[in-house]
């Protein structure tokens, strides 16, 4: 069965520092990969997704992620974070034979400090 593991529950970082949020998945079929962001007291919105093609995917707000099939990972990165990036980040997987159903990771709380 597919599963998603976000390796860090909390990531504190100073403003303008780089950040990497880690995500690993397991699946026996081909997958599509997503990162969603949840700002305080709001719903989730899409940051970026990988469907096929180039393994480096660029998203909104300067975020990017790299799909690594051999390591079954989809880590999210940003070279310089802002206070406004403080939020919870969710990695999610959709298997190619399961329609639109998403399996989410546990979430990583990114806290950007001045």
């Amino acid at each position, binding site marked *: 069965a597919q599963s*998603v593991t*976000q390796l860090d*529950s909390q990531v504190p970082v100073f403003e303008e520092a780089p950040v990497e949020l880690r995500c690993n998945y397991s699946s026996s079929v081909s997958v*599509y990969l*997503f990162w*969603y962001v949840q700002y305080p007291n*709001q*719903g*989730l*919105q*899409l940051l970026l*997704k990988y*469907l096929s093609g180039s393994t480096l995917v660029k998203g909104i707000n300067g975020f990017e992620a790299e799909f690594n099939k051999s390591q079954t990972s989809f880590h999210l990165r940003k070279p310089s974070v802002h206070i406004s990036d403080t939020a919870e980040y*969710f990695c*999610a997987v*959709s*298997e*190619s*034979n*399961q*329609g*639109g*159903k*998403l*399996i*989410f*990771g*546990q*979430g990583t709380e990114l806290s950007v400090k001045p």
Partner: protein
Amino acid sequence: IAGITQAPTSQILAAGRRMTLRCTQDMRHNAMYWYRQDLGLGLRLIHYSNTAGTTGKGEVPDGYSVSRANTDDFPLTLASAVPSQTSVYFCASSDGGLSGDTQYFGPGTRLTVL
């Protein structure tokens, strides 16, 4: 365009009571989803609907039911609420219900069962 609206915003409910969470979308999306969000567990799929008139079970369907009488509305009913159903509930929709489709989320309903 409002996107997805959910009602109520929050609710405190006595155990054993019946409760319906409402979800309406104005994007004419075919697929709709209900998730619950619990700390440390991320989001888990409760039920989904790929098109009006059809529904399916997700990862945690027990104690919940849904209906999809038309394209826009997807209510979630708790027939007899229990404290373990205390959670934040998110409704989402996607255009085609396919594996790579982006899901759009509502603002959530915070439900407390006492």
